[in-house]
């Protein structure tokens, strides 16, 4: 049973790798070869150079880095405020934060495009990243985590002379590390794999096009060179795959911390 | 109604030997207690009878059948877990009914049996509640009820009282014994509490580090422990175990020399060939504080327990002695020097200091 399921999951990836190493003519062969006896590596270099995948990877990396750090920063401070500080209308404002979870991005797409264009951010990293610098779900999760820390911790810190920032970064955050890791993972995956917004907000030059859109372009321009297209997907997936293998445990723990309420 | 036979049963978890060459017979209808400290393997033994763990060696038989390869659900055993393991999403009634449903028993009969069992355990008013709404004691009764409902051949109980508070524990203890005697079901009961074991068991099997130390009735276990482990584990306070050397006294008779004096060798061992050093087992109720006693000790503390008093004293080499005396007698004060004598020489036991085994009477 386990092996059957493994096959179903892995076959597409395996075939992709195999095909990326074959000549296009061989790929169309019936039956298709199961193992590249004479691997041809130029598909990868073609994808990289002609497909500009190097540039796209860089762009994706920059955009993702901006979004992840932005989301983490805004979430950390907001969650701290909601968990530990008192201010008028706190309840209402929290509900406002939560309500953003109810509005899927696609619903705001139309106007956001107009806004971004008006701000002159079309085809810039600003336009690509700023709309995503905050997350209601993340604030909810992290606030939950903070609330679960022992209440007298904050009081003890206050007596010891800790101000808000120091308490937040020296005590609260380290204790809430699993949740922060979870947020970082969610955030990273979401940002890297984004498709619709980059599609709509990047122009035809390579200034900020991300690797996901780069794939679309590769597919269009290399229609017959299937091996090149597939090599492109491997290149696009490679960074995440490496991260998965290295941070496997944290990734799983991170994704489940959010799921198991 | 069944017997349980263990023949050279062993179980390992990785490097750790949990159960080592266990051979034991459980008599039909008896309540056998598996007693031992935490981690001694007693729960593992229980789980192997249930079929939740498989032995690495040896055979287990329930009745005439060797059950090593039999699935838990085909073994006709019922288990009460330490955590109760109630189905949290089902009502009490459904919890009780669950084993019957799995056996395909039809509804009218199920309802009748559940009703009877609920009645006998005073659960009738709680039938529509869920486990989360019940107190610890109530949950415990539901766990018991679920085990009873099937009228299995064997009951397995894994420390069912350990999560209850002290008063409830005493009450429930008696209820379980009464229940078991009424149903006459062979029961294996695991606990680390020797009071529970002594008050409940028809026989007790003492286990340490996976090895069976002794199996006997509570009385026999108390009076004649086979080794120092059993001697020290049972009784409150446990038997005093004092190292001594064997020497020849002034009049040629054998004496046992302690750090605070000497006493004559016990009559039961008079003609025995004793080693040079022994460990002497003195029950705290068999010795007394007496001005003519041969042993000198310093009182450390006196514990008042109501009807009796425990005098805790030390010989000058640091060996600890506990003396039980009636509360009406004056108790020594802290730091006071006292003399102790043996009141019942017949109950003194001798143990080998290397192996820990009790020396046989000649």
């Amino acid at each position, binding site marked *: 049973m386990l092996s059957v399921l493994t096959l179903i999951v892995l076959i597409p990836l395996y075939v992709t790798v195999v095909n990326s190493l074959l000549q296009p003519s061989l790929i169309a062969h019936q039956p298709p070869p199961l193992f590249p006896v004479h691997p041809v590596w130029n598909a990868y270099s073609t994808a990289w150079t002609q497909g500009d995948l190097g540039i796209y990877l860089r762009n994706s990396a920059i955009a993702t880095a901006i979004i992840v750090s932005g989301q983490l920063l805004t979430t950390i401070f*907001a969650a701290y405020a909601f968990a530990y500080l008192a201010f008028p209308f706190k309840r209402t404002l929290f509900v406002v934060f939560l309500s953003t979870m109810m509005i899927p991005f696609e619903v705001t797409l139309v106007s956001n495009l107009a806004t971004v264009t008006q701000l002159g951010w079309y085809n810039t990293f600003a336009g690509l990243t700023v709309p995503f610098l905050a997350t209601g779900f993340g604030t909810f999760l992290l606030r939950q985590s903070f609330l679960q820390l022992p209440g007298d911790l904050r009081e003890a810190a206050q007596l010891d002379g800790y101000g808000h920032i120091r308490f937040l970064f020296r005590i609260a955050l380290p204790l809430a590390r699993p949740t922060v890791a979870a947020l970082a993972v969610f955030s990273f995956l979401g940002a890297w794999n984004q498709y619709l917004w980059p599609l709509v907000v990047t122009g035809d030059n390579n200034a900020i096009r991300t690797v*996901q859109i780069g*794939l679309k372009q590769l597919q269009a321009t290399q229609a017959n060179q299937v091996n090149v*297209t597939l090599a492109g997907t491997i290149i696009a997936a490679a960074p995440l795959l490496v991260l998965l293998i290295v941070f496997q445990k944290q990734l799983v723990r991170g994704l489940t911390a959010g799921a198991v309420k | 109604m069944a017997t349980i036979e263990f023949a050279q049963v062993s179980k390992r978890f990785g490097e750790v030997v949990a159960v080592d060459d266990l051979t034991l017979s459980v008599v039909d209808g008896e309540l056998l207690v598996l007693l031992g400290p935490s981690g001694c393997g007693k729960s593992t033994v229980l789980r192997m009878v*249930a079929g939740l763990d498989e032995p690495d060696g040896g055979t287990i038989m329930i009745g005439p059948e060797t059950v090593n390869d039999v699935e838990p659900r085909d073994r006709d055993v019922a288990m009460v877990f330490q955590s109760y393991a109630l189905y949290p999403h089902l009502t009490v009634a459904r919890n009780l009914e669950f084993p019957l449903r799995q056996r395909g028993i039809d509804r009218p009969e199920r309802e009748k049996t559940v009703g009877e069992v609920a009645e006998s355990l005073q659960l009738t008013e709680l039938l529509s509640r869920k486990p989360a709404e019940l107190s610890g004691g109530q949950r415990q009764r539901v766990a018991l009820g679920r085990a009873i409902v099937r009228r299995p051949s064997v009951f397995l109980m894994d420390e069912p009282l350990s999560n209850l508070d002290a008063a409830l524990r005493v009450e429930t203890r008696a209820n379980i014994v009464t229940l078991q005697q009424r149903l006459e079901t062979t029961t294996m009961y695991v606990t680390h509490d020797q009071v529970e074991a002594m008050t409940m068991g028809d026989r007790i099997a003492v286990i340490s580090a996976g090895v069976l130390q002794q199996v006997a009735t509570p009385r026999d276990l108390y009076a004649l422990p086979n080794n120092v482990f059993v001697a020290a584990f049972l009784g409150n306070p446990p038997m005093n175990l004092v190292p001594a050397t064997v020497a020849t006294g002034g009049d040629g008779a054998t004496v046992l020399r302690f750090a605070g004096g000497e006493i004559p060798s016990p009559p039961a061992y008079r003609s025995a060939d004793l080693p040079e050093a022994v460990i002497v087992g003195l029950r705290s109720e068999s010795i007394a504080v007496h001005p003519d006693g041969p042993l000198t000790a310093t009182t450390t503390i006196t514990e008042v327990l109501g009807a009796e008093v425990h005098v805790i004293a030390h010989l000058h080499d640091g060996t600890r002695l506990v003396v039980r005396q009636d509360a009406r007698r004056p108790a020594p004060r802290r730091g006071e020097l006292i003399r102790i004598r043996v009141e019942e020489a017949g109950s003194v036991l001798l143990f080998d200091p290397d192996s820990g085994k009790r020396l046989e009477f000649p």
Partner: protein
Amino acid sequence: MTFVDLHRPLRRFSTRRRREALIGYAFILPPLLVFSVFTFYPFLHNFKQALYETPPFPNQPSRYVGLHQAGHVLSSSQFLQSLTSTILFTLIVVPLGLFAGLLLAVAAHRRLRGIGIYRTIFSSTVVTSVAIAAVIFGTFMDPVVGLLPWLGINTSPPLLENPTWALLAVALVTVWQGLGLSFIIMSAGLQSVPDDVLEAAEIDGASPAARFWHVTVPLLSPILFFALVIGTISAFQSFGQIDLLTGANSAYLHTDVLTYLIYQNIQGQAPNPGTASVLSIALFVMTLMLTLIQLRFVELRVHYAQ
């Protein structure tokens, strides 16, 4: 002379509170700003924009038409087909995704040696994006260079150009891509099912299937419900795989889900923000309604641990 000013303690108190409030507001200001500009404003703007129609001629200003446009769009056959496609798509993707994830999780939930490798493999699709999955499967389903003829699937027209099968094909690609996340979520849920309750069920005579249905599934129900709600919302937002697999032919192929329709009205040949806004509101309402229906009817059967 020293007066004890009875007013001072009170004022110091309120200064501290005021400071704390200011810090609080400062901390939540940045995200609130982002939300206001990029979530709430656009959402509300939809309602206004829906009332304006943009003529299909370039550089012509849009004119106010009131609810006329909304009525026109919502009753158009294009919208109704899109709605059907979206619902069908969701009906295939969500239950299949849940079931597949659960199956994987149960299969990998054993204390075997090396089970960790299987768990990594099963979570691996979490690193694929819809774009990656779409390109991979798009290649497989290509009539010329793909794998399908070898597997004996020889539909005519080929899968991704076939109005009968295209939606199913795209849905299956979506399920595959989501296997990793589904597996991870279900695995986490399975961890939370207490072992001793399952053992009790085993002793009570329940077969593995009975244990699964009567113990595991009820105790998993909170996670299943969570996955259902999240999965549905996510399915409604699917876009990338549609764009890459069926692209501009989506209307003909019945794969024109709502998000794609919205996209076409933003970056098609004749961009019509008014129509896009109407569709966006429709998408929002649908998502909201589905979530509420699920909360109302499905959550009843979920057992939450205390």
